[in-house]
């Protein structure tokens, strides 16, 4: 007994799609870490980053950490994630959306002393969109809850 040609072709296409999905999954598995756009401060803290190699570092700009140094064109700030913090040095113009408490990506290299020397700074935007009044209200609410106890 043989199946109708239509059914055969359907089976063949399903098999082909399964094989294709499997191949794609394996390829992505192989890519895993290498397709990342940036490394995080905790990956630096874990010693997984070699000094001197060009790379990007991404994280949140620590509150109160942006400080101008020396000639006024240079800055020092800290990028943090949940577990670690890296100090970044940068000389140049900071993007408008580069603010404390929001995400940023630094392009440069890790120095031997554990600091990160950046040649370029990109601001990262999160997925939240709200009007200014609402953002103010949210900020005031968090400030009050922090001040309350």
């Amino acid at each position, binding site marked *: 007994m043989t199946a109708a040609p239509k059914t055969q072709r*359907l089976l063949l296409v399903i098999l082909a799609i399964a094989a*294709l999905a499997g191949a794609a999954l394996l390829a992505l598995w192989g890519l895993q870490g290498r397709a990342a756009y940036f490394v*995080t401060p905790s990956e630096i803290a874990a010693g997984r980053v070699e000094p001197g190699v060009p790379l990007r570092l991404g994280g949140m700009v620590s509150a109160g950490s942006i400080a101008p140094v020396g000639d006024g064109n240079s800055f020092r700030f800290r990028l943090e994630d949940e577990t670690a913090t890296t100090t970044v040095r940068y000389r140049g113009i900071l993007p408008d959306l580069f603010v404390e408490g929001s995400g940023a990506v630094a392009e440069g290299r890790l120095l031997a002393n554990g600091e990160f020397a950046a040649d370029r700074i990109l601001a990262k935007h999160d997925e939240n969109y709200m009007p200014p009044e609402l953002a103010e209200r949210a900020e005031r609410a968090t400030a009050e809850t922090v001040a309350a106890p």
Partner: protein
Amino acid sequence: MHRFANPARFLRIARPATGWTLWPGLVLSLAGFIGGLFFVPADYLQGDSFRILYLHAPAAWLGMAGWSGLAIAGIATLVWRHPLAALAGRAVAPVGALFAAICLASGSIWGRPTWGTWWEWDGRLTSMLVLFFLYLAYIALADAERARGPDSEGRIAAIFGLVGAVNLPIIHYSVIWWNTLHQGRSISIVEGRSSIDPSMLWPLGLTFVGLTLLFVAITLMRMRADIARIKLAMRLQRRAEAAR
């Protein structure tokens, strides 16, 4: 499935459907853009530049939906030898490519003031650019296959459409799998969650539905034009044979 295989029957539905999608599509898109540009508050951080979202997000969806359509048409071509499926694939491809290009261009224009760069090779941006190139390849391949003669019935393009569909989940999950410069998604329909404030959300719904209807209308028009072209060629051939 073969109910629509007959071009006459397809045209009987496609003709009124073109008008029913074109005009509401135009009105809804226009209303959405006007709402997004003039009636919605500016973002607390990005200011007015965020308004490009009302074009960018639907364009991204349609770029990806277009390829899903190609892949489905590919399956219909390969399995059921559906005569209109190959035609549908050829009709969708340039429209999908257009929206993918709009998505890339609008994202780039937004990226300059927001991120500080026109282009970065992160996972989301790169996979979307790959989708655009896949569209160009599909258009070239389908054209070449058609020029070669009617005996292959668009099977090669259909296989390419299926293979290219691998890119769709990569685009969608790129912001989850890898660290990317592009932010994660703001809206999840499955979870019913949105990190876009409701006061800024309604024009997005309008442009999503409006541009999708426009996409359908353009595709239907292209299919009808293609059917007319085939009919004309057949009629001319018949007349030439009769005159001989």
